[in-house]
């Protein structure tokens, strides 16, 4: 029986100076690299395939299969790009990982690049996280000095250059083809597929793009074996992952557990919903995954079960909201976010998110009419599946799910002539009015 929590990626986060090479290697770090370099590249890919690791960035595509799509012996350069643009609202797992243990990621990058026969790799990290960028820069520098990166790594004839590349503020760059355009020095706009990045990615060459947590999971798989990894989790959602609880919970934070744990179990570990309050709604994997409610507390948090419940596992970003939260206000704010972050390339998303905000804003102010709900659903229907990339789909998720579960709360805004909630009651601090005198 596997334990409730299974710290692997987070296991060294409480070590002294965990971010340093010395600390990481003291605990066996870079042992997996040396093991991998003794294997054939195709065998490394097979191990990752056999582990059942699925992408940790939200989509859940099998990582080893993605690597297997890279054509071999094609004479073109291959690239590995790590998507460290973590920006999905609610998602906060990759940043603490890179802050505490950047070498876990760097070791994963080297093994993964070796497997797909890439000689240049990139970590595309969002720009708004200065200290994470510093820790990555330092870790990469340490890895070069230790001979884990550069020419003829540990005498095995394999070369790898790793570049830490800071973005400049654009949610859309978390979409893998927009990320590639951004990394090529362009506006971050998604590309038409096919061709897929595995065939024509960065600089039109075969490219693998993986999330931070996916790549960081590779060293432990190589070190401990595919069976060890697949011994955790469920039949189709294998291994452990970081679950991030935030919002109205007593002890929010990161909880590394086998896939398939439930929110009820996680809430129990996190000290429950804040005292005196009850769960109202939550996101299983960021704002782009449809809202769930208290009736879903026992749904296993794996790809299949959350899908069957009408949402998506996404990034395991569990944002918890209690009964003091106005769902219309919450959804409006997310919708404003999608409108702001829409890259403008395709009409359904560019125009659609604009109209969604107009309609929601009117409803939130208690204006408009019940027919606006049908307009919203109609708009969502015309965006979902018709936008160029998943940003448009994501924009519809909070709206359609909130109307499904909280239709009457929208109507209450109309009856009330405005928002019936006290937003002070939802805050995590005792509200002091601005007039109460502040030390200045």
């Amino acid at each position, binding site marked *: 029986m*596997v334990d409730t*929590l*299974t*710290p692997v990626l987070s*296991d060294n*986060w409480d070590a002294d*100076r965990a971010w*340093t090479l010395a600390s990481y*290697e*003291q*605990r*066996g*770090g*870079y*042992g997996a690299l*040396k093991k991998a*370099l*003794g294997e*054939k590249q195709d065998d490394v890919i097979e191990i990752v395939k056999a582990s059942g690791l699925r992408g940790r960035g939200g989509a859940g595509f099998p990582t080893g299969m993605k690597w297997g799509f890279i054509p071999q012996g094609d004479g073109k350069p291959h690239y590995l790009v790590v998507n460290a643009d973590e920006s999905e609202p*609610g998602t*906060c797992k990759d940043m*603490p990982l890179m802050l*505490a*243990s950047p070498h876990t990621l760097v070791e994963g990058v080297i093994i993964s690049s070796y497997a797909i026969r890439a000689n*240049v790799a990139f970590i595309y990290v969002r*720009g708004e996280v*200065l*200290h994470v*960028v*510093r820790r990555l820069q*330092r870790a990469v520098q340490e890895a070069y*000095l*230790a001979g884990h990166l550069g020419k003829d790594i540990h005498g*095995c004839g394999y070369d790898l250059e790793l*570049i830490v*590349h800071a973005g400049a*503020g*654009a*949610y859309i760059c978390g979409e893998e083809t927009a990320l590639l355009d951004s*990394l*090529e*020095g362009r506006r971050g706009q998604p590309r038409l597929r096919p061709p897929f990045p595995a065939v024509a990615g960065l*600089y039109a060459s075969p490219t693998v793009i993986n999330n931070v947590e996916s790549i960081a999971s590779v060293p*432990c798989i190589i*070190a401990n074996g595919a*069976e060890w990894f697949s011994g955790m989790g469920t039949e189709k959602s294998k291994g452990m992952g970081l679950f991030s609880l*935030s*919002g109205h919970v007593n002890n*929010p934070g*990161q909880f*590394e557990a086998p896939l398939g744990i439930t929110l009820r179990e996680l809430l129990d*570990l996190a000290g429950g919903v804040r005292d005196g309050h009850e769960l109202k709604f939550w996101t299983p994997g960021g704002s782009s995954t449809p809202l769930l409610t208290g009736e879903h507390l026992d749904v296993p948090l794996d790809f299949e079960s959350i899908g069957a419940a009408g949402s998506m596992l996404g990034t395991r970003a569990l944002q918890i909201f209690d009964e003091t939260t106005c769902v219309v206000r*919450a959804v409006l*704010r*997310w919708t404003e976010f999608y409108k702001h*972050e829409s890259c403008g390339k395709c009409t359904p998303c560019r125009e659609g998110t604009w109209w969604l905000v107009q309609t929601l804003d009117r409803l939130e102010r208690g204006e408009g009419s019940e027919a606006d709900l049908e307009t919203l659903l109609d708009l969502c229907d015309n965006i979902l599946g018709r936008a160029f990339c998943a940003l448009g789909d994501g924009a519809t998720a909070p709206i359609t799910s909130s109307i499904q579960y909280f239709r009457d709360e929208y109507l209450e805004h109309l009856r009330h002539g405005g928002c019936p909630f006290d*937003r*002070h009651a939802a805050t995590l*601090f005792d509200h002091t009015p601005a007039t109460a005198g502040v030390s*200045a």
Partner: protein
Amino acid sequence: MTIAPETVGELREIAARYPQSRSALLPMLHLLQSSEGFVTAEAIEVCADVLDISAAEVSGVATFYTMYKRRPVGDYHVGVCTNTLCAVMGGDLIFERLKDHLGVGNDETTDDGKVTLEHIECNAACDYAPVMTVNWEFFDNQTPESAVALVDDLAAGNVVTATRGARVCTWREAERVLAGFPDDRADEGPAAGPASLAGLKLARERNWRAPEPSSESTTGDAIAADQAAKSSRTESDVAVAASPADTADSAGPKSDSNSDGKAPDAGGTH
């Protein structure tokens, strides 16, 4: 041209890092924000010149990303997350209080040029909501009162240290780091904050751990690895203190306990 020759030299240095030079455009714009204070018309021209692309192409990129500014920014860029979760937990009230306290609107700078206030999108620290940033360093678990005290400290020139990060530098210094020129502050601050360790702490208390790997599949070369570590040096030449193994409560597959102590033979068979 008022852009210094040294800056142009550094722009070319960035361009040389990449397999194709145009990939350097984002870090180049970060560097120019550091040297010029914002993306000036001249900055656009010099990027175009270095990369041999049109100024319109550079301009198209500079206007796409929210971190690039077309007006001067204060010494301290103060961000308040007002995406849904932080907003509901108190970010909206914090932002309103700061606008009132500083007498500025969104994306505006105080008259003394010290503080630029901006509401920001989710910054991946939701377990520390409500979240603020100063020059893109994390300031966790804020209240309106702590936010006011923070900006007052910044305006007064007091040393301010991020919750999970370094002593705050200026915005222009931060932009230089983002351009890929490290400032040697990586060792400041903790590895993790309390929320990041919430699950790990519980696991330690309850003796929960990942399953042990079967013995033949483990790798253990901690000793050799440690020796390699000792031969490495960081840019700072700061001696990296040997980390205690903290084996007392460490468990799981990365533990030293699986080490067979053998030096690895990295010579592969491929």
